[in-house]
Structure formats: structure tokens, C-alpha cells
């Protein structure tokens, strides 16, 4: 069974292989879309009246759902590891540079990115907002949601599944069949720089080739106020899509060696000279 739909600003394809019970496509799709809507209502800065958009306007205590625990935890962990370069408080900057909820791409006056502690404090499930701030969970939100959808499907006995959220892929298959995935060439989307085989893992890719305007793409370094140019694309393999997604972005901001002591993952980085740096067990065939 294959489901295709648009959500959180990208296109999703979910392939369900051999489910245990008879599933109705309409029912499964409805369940998934409902869950995504709930996620958007909390975490999206693009959704009207979302929790995140309320936090941008008013101080106070805000109650977040269950999944916020692991999301805030990884954000805070990476915030500390990267000395503030990886931060959910980058939302205001993205908006000021033009990547706002209306996709206006018009630059406005820029303010420095606010540090974590003076502005927010997360004690699950409550976020205390001391300074109104626009939070952006783009770096790891998709991975978080992919894991959530995988869990939802598990509840209805769907364990052999491929969830492809705009190129971030979670693939579980207890029959042991590997999935061949092309690593898209950021300089030419009709081409690939290599092929990776995936099984019972998540693969997330990040690059600056699509969401770009003027001199920027969707990853902004909060200290330099520029988009990193030395790296063209990154890919990360990890057990959870949340980790893979977060680290794929983090690799634009800090070297891999800063992340290696803290997470279990494999990576590949394509730099602006078209050279590849990858971890030993990132088993991809690269085209030279």
C-alpha cells in the first residue's frame, strides 16, 4: 500500500509492506494526517495559532505534548555541544531574513539570536517562556515526526514500512531486504553522487540547494548570520529519524568530531570542492 501526501512543507511517501491485518488506505491516511495536524498545531511556526506562534508573542508557561521531551532534549544537547550554533531560537532570524510563514523572502532588520537560558526553560511538559521568541524546529522536527508516524503505524501492527518524508527515510523490514537509495547530487537533482543501502535504520539528508533565496539557504549560522557555504550536503544514518535529522543539520555547523562522542551515527559530508568525508561504516558506493 502506498500513501502520498503533502505535509510539513514537503512531500511524503509511505510504503506499507505486508501488513498483518487488512488495512483500509483511507483509514490509515486519515490517522496519519490527523497525527501530523496535531504535531503542526504544537511545533510549526507556519501554522496559524500554533503553540509556537503563541510563544512568539507572549511570556508564560506552555504545555507541550509527550514527544516534546525527546525533541527539546536533543535540541538542548546539541545547543550545548555546538555552543549555541544549533538552536531552536533561530526562528526570528529566519523570519527576518525572509523565510517567514508566508514565504515572503523579504529581508527585514536583523536582531541577534537570543541565547537559550534567558529566554526559555523546558521542564517536561512545561516550557517556561521568559522572553517571547519564535521557535523553529526545522532542524529536527521532521525526523521527530517520522519517528512518531512509525510508532503510530506500529500500534496498528504495521512494522514493515518505508516512510519517506521528502528524502528523509525510515525503513524497517524484518525480512532483511535492503533499500537502495540514491544520494542526490545537490548541484544537479537529476543525478546522484552515490548509492546507500538502508535496512532498519533512518537516513536523513540535508543540503542548501532547494530552500534558497539571495545568498541564503534554510540553514543559517546564528553567529555569522550567513548560510554555511563550505558544505554542500550532509547525510546521517541513525536508528531514530530524530537523531539522523538533527545531526544532518548539525554537521553544517560543527565538525563531525564534535558530535561523535555524543551520538551513535554514521555520516557523509559533501564539501564545496566535491570531496567526500564519511565515517567508516557509512557504507555507500560513491561515484568518482
Amino acid at each position: 500500500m502506498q500513501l502520498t501526501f503533502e505535509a510539513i512543507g514537503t512531500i511524503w511517501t509511505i510504503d506499507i509492506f505486508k501488513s498483518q491485518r487488512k488495512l483500509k488506505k483511507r483509514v490509515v491516511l486519515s490517522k496519519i494526517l490527523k497525527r501530523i495536524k496535531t504535531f503542526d498545531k504544537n511545533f510549526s511556526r507556519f501554522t496559524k495559532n500554533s503553540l509556537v506562534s503563541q510563544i512568539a508573542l507572549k511570556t508564560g508557561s506552555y504545555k507541550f505534548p509527550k514527544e516534546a521531551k525527546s525533541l527539546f532534549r536533543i535540541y538542548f544537547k546539541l545547543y550545548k555541544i555546538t555552543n549555541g550554533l544549533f538552536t531552536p531560537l533561530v526562528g526570528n532570524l529566519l523570519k527576518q531574513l525572509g523565510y517567514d510563514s508566508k514565504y515572503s523572502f523579504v529581508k527585514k532588520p536583523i536582531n541577534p539570536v537570543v541565547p537559550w537560558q534567558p529566554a526559555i526553560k523546558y521542564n517536561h511538559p512545561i516550557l517556561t517562556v521568559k522572553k517571547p521568541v519564535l521557535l523553529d524546529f526545522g532542524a529536527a522536527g521532521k525526523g521527530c515526526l517520522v519517528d512518531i508516524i512509525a510508532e503510530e503505524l506500529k500500534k496498528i501492527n504495521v512494522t514493515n514500512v518505508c516512510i519517506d518524508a521528502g528524502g528523509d527515510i525510515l525503513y524497517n523490514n524484518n525480512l532483511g531486504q535492503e533499500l537502495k537509495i540514491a544520494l542526490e547530487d545537490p548541484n544537479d537533482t537529476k543525478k546522484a553522487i552515490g548509492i546507500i543501502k538502508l535496512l532498519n535504520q533512518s537516513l536523513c539528508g540535508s543540503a542548501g540547494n532547494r530552500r534558497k533565496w539571495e545568498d541564503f539557504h534554510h540553514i543559517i549560522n546564528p553567529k555569522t548570520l550567513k548560510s554555511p557555504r563550505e558544505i554542500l550536503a550532509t547525510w546521517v544514518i541513525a536508528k531514530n529519524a530524530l537523531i539522523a535529522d538533527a545531526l544532518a543539520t548539525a554537521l553544517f555547523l560543527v565538525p563531525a568530531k564534535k558530535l561523535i562522542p555524543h551520538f551513535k551515527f554514521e555520516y557523509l559530508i559533501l564539501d564545496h570542492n566535491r570531496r567526500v568525508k564519511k565515517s567508516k561504516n557509512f557504507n555507500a558506493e560513491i561515484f568518482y
Partner: protein
Amino acid sequence: MLELALYWQTKKQISVSQNNQNLPPVDNIINKNTNKYKNGTFSDTGSYSSPAGEEQIGVSITLNNDTIVDASVEPKAVSPTSKFFQNQFALNFKDRVVGKNIVDLEVSKVSGSSLTPKGFNKALEKIKKQANATNL
């Protein structure tokens, strides 16, 4: 080892830039009878002195019309430090990637930056048009 990497880099750069300029393949330019080296794959083992003692490394090169079209390295080190360095070299000596057409690859999926939906692309198009208009 460094010389091999530099040599590989230079040769590959030439062939990559030729591809980018849509020049005819090397075969059509060079008369095969005047090749300096035979076409084919050639392998040998080299020895060198390391602080840990004498070490060996296997090298294999494929030549076609005096161009290195492929190369591989087989670590044969004995000491742990040499093993580490040889493995690092084996993993990293091949330099710049090229893109292959995805339609020619037998893949089920493609992974890269997130696909952007129509709304986003439409907004970008509008901005580009505005930018072009103001440049007139």
C-alpha cells in the same frame, strides 16, 4: 602515498572537466597506437619504512588511453598505527565525486534536501520575477 593521491587528483580533474565541457570522449582524440602505457589493470605491492618498521601496501590502477580511470588500494600494514593510516588513506584518497543520472541507477528512493511543495516554489518564482523586473 601522497604522490599517488596527487596524481590521481590531477588525472581525475582533467577527465571531470572534460565531461563538464561536453567534449568528445578521450578515445576519439587520442590515437590508441601512440599510447605510452598499455590499457588495463595493473597491481603491485609497495614497501615503505614507517616508524613502526617496514610496511606494505597494495595498489591497483586501471589505465585507459594513458588516463587513470580507476584505482584502489589494499592495506597490508601490520602495526596498528600503520593500519590506521593505511585505512584512512584507502577511504579518502579518491578525491572528487561525480554525479550519475538517477534514472540509470536501480534505486528505490532518493535522499537529499527536502522536496519543496508547490507553494514554496511558487513564492520563489515570484521573488525571482520581482528581482528580474527591478533589474531592468
